């Protein structure tokens, strides 16, 4: 009996497949559109997830507290003298001044990020050499030597030369010598960086002595970050205090996949509904009614006919889902989300090589299923109940 039942389900599956095959143009286009929707949805989700993951993983090492001076609601240079006021706060291990900012290259129309600091004072500063693919970090006393990211190397078209020049604000030129370049592996952090000493950065941006752009504060006990941040706020009211947890939180919002992904989901779910509206909402065609009536007279139960419809929907949506997700994974991992690069990177001139490694989580797959396959099943199987209303005797004439 169980054998018969299995065989019956297989027969019905056969029938569903062959009826899909008979309407292969329609089925195939449906499958393709459906797979494309899932592909877009899954790709987007994988990209944002991979980036969020990367951010979460890397930003654990971000400075514990960053101080910036605010004036007239805008950020401006912060006096080095503030360090003395900080010295009174118990628990601060080290304060590192930095000058960093953007250098707009008017020839290449690109924004470079310039970072000037005394590397020796930074945690792990001594190990930075391990992140280079060539050369070395400039020594403490070496002047005019910089380390550049991969995109800078490309943008400056160095081709073997090791010197290049940048304009100061008064349009006089200052030249730099490349002492090393960051490994392409670190592209996602260092792609657009020019790292130099504090003095060079001050010279390049013409920042008066005694001022820097921000102060990185390192504390003795990481669990005290919030307390110390509060103390700094109280001591220096004009200073904006950014803590590491805030930066991490910011990133979760920035990639805000809940909102961004949510809106995309709604759009694509809508698209899915449009497809099925086109497919099924028109109701049963005369041919379908005739087929159902014939099958009923020939001894098919209503449940068998519903099973055919159910299988058709499951096969189409299941195959579309599998194909779409596989394609999405290939797209994200092997083609570095090429389709989304314009959106993700906007109008950037410098673009990092993305090596994305999305995690595949059951929850995310279920989310995608819930937004695509479930509505499709609901919208295709439920109208099939109408086939129950087709009377068998309508196959009889006159």
């Amino acid at each position, binding site marked *: 009996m169980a054998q018969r039942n*299995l*065989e019956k389900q297989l*027969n019905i599956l056969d029938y569903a497949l062959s009826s899909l095959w008979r309407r292969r143009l329609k089925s195939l286009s449906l499958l393709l559109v459906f797979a494309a929707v899932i592909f877009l949805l899954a790709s987007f989700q994988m990209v944002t997830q991979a980036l969020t993951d990367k951010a979460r993983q890397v930003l654990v090492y971000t400075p514990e507290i960053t101080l910036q001076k605010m004036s007239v609601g805008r950020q401006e240079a912060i006096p080095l003298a503030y360090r003395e006021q900080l010295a009174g706060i118990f628990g601060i291990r080290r304060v590192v001044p930095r000058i960093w900012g953007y250098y707009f290259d008017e020839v290449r129309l690109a924004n470079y990020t310039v970072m000037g600091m005394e590397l020796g004072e930074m945690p792990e500063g001594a190990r930075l050499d391990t992140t280079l693919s060539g050369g070395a970090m400039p020594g403490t006393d070496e002047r005019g030597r910089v380390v550049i990211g991969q995109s800078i190397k490309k943008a400056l078209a160095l081709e073997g030369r090791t010197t290049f020049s940048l304009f100061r604000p008064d349009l006089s030129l200052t030249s730099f010598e490349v002492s090393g370049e960051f490994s392409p592996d670190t592209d996602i952090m260092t792609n657009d960086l020019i790292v130099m000493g504090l003095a060079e950065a001050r010279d390049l941006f013409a920042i008066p002595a005694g001022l820097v752009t921000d102060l990185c504060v390192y504390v003795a006990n990481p669990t005290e970050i919030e307390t110390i941040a509060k103390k700094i706020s109280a001591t220096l009211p004009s200073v904006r205090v950014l803590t590491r947890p805030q930066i991490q939180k910011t990133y979760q919002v920035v990639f805000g996949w809940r909102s961004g992904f949510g809106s995309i989901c709604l759009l694509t779910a809508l698209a899915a509904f449009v497809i099925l509206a086109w497919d099924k909402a028109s109701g049963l065609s005369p041919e379908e009614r005739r087929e159902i009536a014939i099958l*009923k007279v020939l001894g098919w139960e209503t449940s068998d006919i519903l099973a055919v419809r159910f299988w058709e929907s499951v096969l189409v949506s299941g195959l579309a889902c599998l194909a779409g997700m596989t394609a999405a994974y290939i797209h994200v991992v092997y083609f570095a989300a090429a389709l989304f690069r314009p959106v993700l990177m906007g109008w950037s001139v410098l673009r990092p090589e993305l090596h994305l490694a999305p995690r595949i989580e059951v929850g995310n797959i279920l989310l995608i299923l819930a937004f695509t396959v479930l509505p499709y099943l609901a919208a295709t199987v439920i109208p099939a109940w109408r086939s129950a209303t087709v009377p068998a005797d309508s196959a009889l*004439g*006159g």
Partner: protein
Amino acid sequence: MLIELSGVSKIYNQGKANEVKALADIDLEVEQGSMVCLKGPSGSGKSTLLAIIGCIFPPTSGRAAIAGRQLARLPDRFLTLHRRETIGFIFQRFNILPELTVLDNITLPLLPLGVPPRERRQRAEELMERFAISHRAQFPAGQISGGELQRVAIARALINSQPIILADEPTAHLDTVLSQEFMEIMQQLKTTGKTIVIASHDPLAFEHPAIDRIVIIKDGSIHVP
């Protein structure tokens, strides 16, 4: 008696504004191996009577026993199960699904029975050989000739070895030659012990020598001349 109807009547949409009395007080007995023709103009209730004999729906009142089973209180599902074991249908215009192959059309009734493909093929091949349509097995049914189509329809009605064959106006859209061929096949089937009920108002059908009895239906009841 394979078919026993007594006092059968059928009212469509009973109790509603569009109530239609289709059959009233029909008594009919058909024994196994006989061939009966239901004759009457269209709208006379022939098809309704055929539907009751074919276990498509139970009568509104009266007793209908088909192959030893009372239809009256049978739920829809059991009607279906009983129908596929008992009745082979041949429709007006044959109702073959044109996109399916001849083989698939013939084996259609076997799918919900859970008959595996090999056995399905085997049974269909026997019948196709018998009706000389083996060479058309893989053709879409929409592409074969009228005569072949008719034999496909007959093969489909026989695929589950049903004891009763019901034919609804089978010759209405056939020319004389094909109509005669159809009746000859029916005659052969009769000799193998099938019980055949044909609803028709085509003289070629009801005047055929193999017909044992002609039942004239008029305005929903049996007309005795």
